[in-house]
């Protein structure tokens, strides 16, 4: 019989170095996913404890106690009270920051009362020693009745020792820290017997948190709630008394085991850094310089690897075309699947760069200061101090930006940020903007200095930003949640980032995108490929011949005929049909069926608009901007006899692309981050409606 893998959970408060310990124990053997039902990163990994024992390590969200403050933290209470649950640990490691033990031990005393076999890992012992603190370790072990290990998760000191203790037997501590009062004891006993629980405290937790323990069937939760009510069990009152009692125990304990306490001198450096970074003028300047650096790097530096990926996949398609025999199956591979995969891989540089910055900001402790600086302003708009980084990143690309919203603890704030981020003009809109702006806006200079075209371009970015802020404001009043928003947050002392943590974070986020959102992106891109390449069979197969016979007398060069064939095929494909069906709907916006086709195909990604326009007007290469511009300039609107792309049409299109979702990858990532299709579909509907109505207003007013 194969023994079930030993399950070890890592628990502790935020900033206690839990993630560093997790990375030390598991290295690259990590798996990420979500805890069932919630979007909380679930990090698991395997670790070889000794010759015989392999353990599965589960990294739980950082929390101060079993009582959750955010939806994410609910996971912790669930994991520790659901004995039949998939994640119920055999052993627990409580990671504590040795420089500030008091707050770390609160959760520990709760684990003791739950009778969970726990090992206390004192992290950052180097810092504690430097601050002059010394602890009587033996006494601490005896008082807590559990193994205590000193570690330094940054350089790996003590990790082997921790592993060997975890490989051996660990008994639950025999201490009982919290004693419930007389009145509730009977009730607790009743719940404990009914659910067959191992400790009184677990029964007490059932009574405290019946709403949060979703693993319990509904009728059981109802039963607990009713029993609590009948027996005058006052959750909040007891919870307050419990915390005070626990801190009393902790204070007594620390008084006995701390032989010399630290002086606060080592925090001096951190405090003087704070004076600069949270300065009322300097603080903002520094923050915006950092934001600009992030923005610049995902916008500009990522372009180099992205171009490389782009040309590699284009090259691969051409190569496969030469190698493969003809036929729809092979074309699906070379023109549908390969470019589809390319469309996923292309996001990796931006994701990697953004998360490198974000994890550095978090590792150093600066992220907490960003929240501190921005909270007051952002809260007015229903956002959170932490929304700033995703929103700004949205100017480069909404995909990594939306992934970055996981740093926002409050679910409502996170949802609003996810919802409005795609309104920020991302870099994929730029090719559409530049070609249309160059086409319809005259190349004047205002005051001999500002280019007219540049001003319009800036106006479009501003328009998206304003729409994002106003939408956030509207949602602030529309979404009702029970969860109250708090900003009771630790401002950790500044630290140098640990580079391996940064690297692992990049790998983790990239994997999450490729394997989770990637599936949806690939599926949609294959559907769009089929729509644009296939149509009623007879028309399509005769395309080549039809075009050749039509143009016979013209003696066109072969490349031009090829272009005309492609244009003819696209026109008669299902996407082309769809464009024609759409024509009556988009006519009030000033568009015709050709633009309609471009709207359909550019649902894959906005920049596809340019390529489709190039094909439909049989321009040949989409790379040459001035050729496309020339061609579009001469395009005639048959109804008016004037040019097709007038100022009202062009502005209407620009406004449409500023607001419209038009990006399947964004939909895919929103689906991943919100756990389901509800929010991406609401978002798609909202943005499309906003785009349609605004484009309609622009065209009708100007025309």
């Amino acid at each position, binding site marked *: 019989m194969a023994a079930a893998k030993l399950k070890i959970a890592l628990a502790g408060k935020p900033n206690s170095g839990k993630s560093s310990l997790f990375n030390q124990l598991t290295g690259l053997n990590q798996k990420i996913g979500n805890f069932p039902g919630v979007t909380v990163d679930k990090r698991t990994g395997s670790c070889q404890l000794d010759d015989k024992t392999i353990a599965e390590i589960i990294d739980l969200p950082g929390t*101060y*106690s079993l*009582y959750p*403050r955010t939806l994410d933290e609910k996971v912790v209470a669930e994991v520790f009270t659901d004995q039949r649950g998939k994640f119920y640990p055999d052993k627990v490691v409580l990671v504590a920051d040795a420089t*500030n033990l*008091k*707050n770390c031990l*609160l959760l520990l005393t709760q684990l003791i009362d739950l009778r969970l076999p726990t090992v206390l890992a004192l992290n950052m012992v180097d810092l504690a020693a430097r601050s002059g603190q010394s602890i009587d370790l033996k006494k601490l072990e005896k008082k807590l009745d559990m193994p205590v290990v000193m570690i330094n998760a940054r350089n790996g000191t003590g990790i082997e020792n921790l592993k060997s203790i975890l490989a051996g037997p660990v008994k639950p501590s025999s201490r009982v820290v919290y004693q419930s009062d007389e009145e509730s004891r009977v009730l607790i006993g009743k719940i404990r017997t009914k659910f067959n629980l191992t400790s009184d405290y677990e029964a007490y937790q059932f009574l405290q948190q019946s709403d949060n323990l979703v693993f319990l069937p509904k009728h059981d939760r109802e039963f607990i709630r009713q029993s609590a009510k009948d027996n005058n069990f006052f959750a*909040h*009152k007891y*919870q*307050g008394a419990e*915390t*005070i009692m626990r*801190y009393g125990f902790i204070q007594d304990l620390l008084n006995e085991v701390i032989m010399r306490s630290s002086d606060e001198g080592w925090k001096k450096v951190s*405090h003087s850094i*704070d*004076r600069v970074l*949270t*300065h*009322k*003028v300097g*603080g*903002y300047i520094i923050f915006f310089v950092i934001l600009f650096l992030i923005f610049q790097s995902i916008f500009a530096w990522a372009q180099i690897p992205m171009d490389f990926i782009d040309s590699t996949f284009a090259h691969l398609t051409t190569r496969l075309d030469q190698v493969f025999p003809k036929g729809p199956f092979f074309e699906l591979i070379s023109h549908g699947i390969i470019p589809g995969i390319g469309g996923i891989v292309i996001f990796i540089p931006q994701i990697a760069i953004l998360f490198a910055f974000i994890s550095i900001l978090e590792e150093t402790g600066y992220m*907490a200061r960003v*929240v*501190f*600086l921005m*909270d*007051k*302003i952002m809260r007015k708009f229903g956002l959170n101090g932490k929304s700033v980084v995703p929103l700004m990143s949205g100017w480069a690309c909404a995909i990594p930006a939306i992934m970055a919203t996981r740093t926002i603890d409050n679910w409502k704030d996170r949802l609003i940020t996810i919802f409005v981020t795609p309104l920020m003009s991302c870099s994929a809109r730029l090719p559409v903007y530049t070609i249309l702006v160059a086409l319809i806006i005259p190349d004047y200079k205002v005051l001999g200095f500002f280019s007219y075209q540049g001003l319009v371009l800036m106006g479009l970015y501003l328009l998206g930003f304003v729409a994002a802020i106003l939408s956030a404001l509207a949602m602030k009043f529309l979404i009702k949640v029970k969860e*109250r928003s*708090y*900003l*009771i*947050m*630790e*401002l*950790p*002392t500044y630290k140098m980032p640990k580079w391996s943590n940064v690297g692992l974070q990049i790998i983790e986020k990239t994997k999450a995108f490729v394997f989770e959102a990637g599936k949806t992106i690939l599926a949609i891109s294959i559907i769009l490929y089929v729509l644009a390449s296939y149509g009623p069979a007879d028309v399509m197969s005769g395309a080549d011949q039809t075009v050749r016979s039509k143009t016979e007398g013209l003696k066109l060069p072969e490349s031009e005929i090829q272009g005309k064939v492609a244009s003819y095929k696209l026109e008669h494909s299902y996407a082309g049909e769809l464009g024609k069906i759409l024509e009556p709907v988009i006519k009030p916006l000033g568009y015709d069926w050709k633009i309609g086709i471009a709207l359909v195909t550019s649902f894959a990604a906005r920049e596809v608009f340019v390529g489709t326009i190039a094909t439909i007007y049989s321009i040949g290469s989409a790379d040459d901007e001035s050729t496309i511009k020339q061609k579009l300039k001469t395009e005639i609107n048959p109804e008016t006899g004037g040019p097709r792309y007038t100022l009202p049409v062009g502005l209407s299109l620009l406004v449409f692309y500023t607001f419209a979702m038009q990006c399947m990858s964004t939909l895919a990532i929103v689906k991943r981050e919100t756990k389901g299709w509800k929010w991406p579909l609401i978002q798609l509907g909202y943005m499309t409606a906003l785009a349609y109505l605004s484009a309609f207003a622009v065209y009708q007013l100007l025309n």
Partner: protein
Amino acid sequence: MKSVADMTKGETAIISGFTDEEISVKLLEMGFLPGTAVRFNFAAPFGDPICVSVSGYDLSLRLEEASTISILN
């Protein structure tokens, strides 16, 4: 009654109690215990949120949260 929100930069006071039960359980967990000292470090540029030291570490609080912590002085 004075609260943490009324404190000035550099001031230290003793926590005496709370005026909002729901937030109080969170504040207790974070180390705002009646009888312990709290120090007002600095405020964010618009005066809100604020940074305080309590139970050996630095925390940020919104003014509306700070105003629920009563102090003796």
